[in-house]
């Protein structure tokens, strides 16, 4: 198939992001709308790379307070304690729940970090119009989209703990400022992944030379 790869963009065709219908792009400057569902059509997501970078850089910055600041503040008769994400995992590990410690470690430390690295890699490779391993990069993007949501895990844990452990002087758990930063990292990386257009990975591989032949076929 590699010799006959023809993309929609090379033929002046646009696929609708909302309903998937393929329609002919115009040559004028005005925005085009899908004839089936009316959604605004774009050849590629508008400003995808710039928007994706903006969300990603914001996520990088907030990743630091998310890991350094306490996500949860516990106070009880035995004193007060502030837990970061990592110290919560260490606590789970020492209390014998190594399996859950592993789940939280993967969801809260590994996934956000790998997501930041993966998106950086994708953005740089796309900007350099790299033709290196497009299939592997496409798979990487799919994984980023799939697992990104699992980082919300720690936010939910804190929400449940803070709601349940409110027994006055005996024990009180409050959400810490780290939760705020961590939630922002999850949301920002999800926005960054959504803004990224995976078709850009494949664009350097499709020369425009098929364009004319295909246009004739369609007309």
């Amino acid at each position, binding site marked *: *198939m590699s010799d006959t*790869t*023809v*993309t929609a963009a090379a033929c002046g*065709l646009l*696929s609708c*992001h*909302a*309903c*998937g*219908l*393929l329609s002919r792009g115009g040559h004028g400057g005005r925005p085009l*709308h*899908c*004839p*089936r*569902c*009316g959604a605004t059509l774009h050849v590629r997501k508008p400003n995808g790379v710039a928007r994706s970078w903006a969300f990603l850089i914001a996520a990088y910055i907030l990743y630091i307070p998310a890991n350094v600041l306490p996500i949860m503040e516990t106070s009880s008769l035995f004193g007060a304690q502030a837990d970061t994400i990592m110290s919560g995992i260490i606590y*789970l590990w020492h209390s014998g*729940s190594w399996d*859950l410690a592993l*789940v*939280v470690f993967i*969801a809260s430390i590994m996934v956000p970090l790998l997501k930041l690295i993966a998106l950086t890699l994708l953005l740089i490779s796309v900007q350099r119009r790299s033709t290196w391993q*497009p*299939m592997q990069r*496409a*798979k990487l993007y*799919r994984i980023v989209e799939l697992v990104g*949501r699992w980082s*919300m*895990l*720690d*936010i*939910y*844990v*804190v*929400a*449940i*703990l*803070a*709601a*349940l*452990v*409110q*027994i*006055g002087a*005996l*024990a009180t758990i409050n*959400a810490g400022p780290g*939760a*705020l930063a961590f*939630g922002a990292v999850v*949301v920002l990386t*999800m926005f960054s992944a959504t803004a990224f257009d*995976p*078709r850009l990975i*494949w*664009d350097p591989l499709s020369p425009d030379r098929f364009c004319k032949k*295909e246009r004739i076929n369609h007309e």
Partner: protein
Amino acid sequence: MGRPMTVIACHECDLLQREIQLPPGRVAHCVRCGAKLYRVENRSIDHTLALTLATAVVFIIANSFPIIGLQIQTTRNDTSLVSAVHMLWHQGMWPVAGLVFFTTFLAPSAVLVIMIHILVALKRERIPAGFTHVMSLLQIFNHWGMVEVFIIGVIVALVKLTHYGTLIPGIALWSLGVLTLLMTATSSSFNAHDIWNRVHPTPRRGGNQ
């Protein structure tokens, strides 16, 4: 579907390819990047509607009863999803409270309402009101609904709480487990590609919104 010559573009790599006839329940993948292109309908509208309604019932139960209760000596404290959000809000964590509320309550309930709206209309052989708008809303809400992550979060919280006192699992805890399974079944049964073709088999001429 007698449309043998439909050309589609892969949404992940933009490759043009012909839509081919597949046996029901099979998935078409892009020849170049392997992205899932479309799945052929193998469930009736009735089947999907029944699953969606069942999910809605369990969703209501999961949000009306406490998830877990914690008893320390004589004090007992129960929490439901909404009361957890309420508590976060009062601790000054309103952005986090909003995020939790949106991802575990608002987005999943919007998904269910929209799906029921579309499926009921299709069952009555009508075009769902505001079809194009609700379909794009459905995409967004599906992306942000995270009930399956929430249930794992509840389990982690349970383990962390064991040394605090006695834990009393509530009805909503079991409902959340069932809800996760039902939601997976519902979303795999709801076929957006097929519904688009069912509502608008051929592109309308002019009169764009």
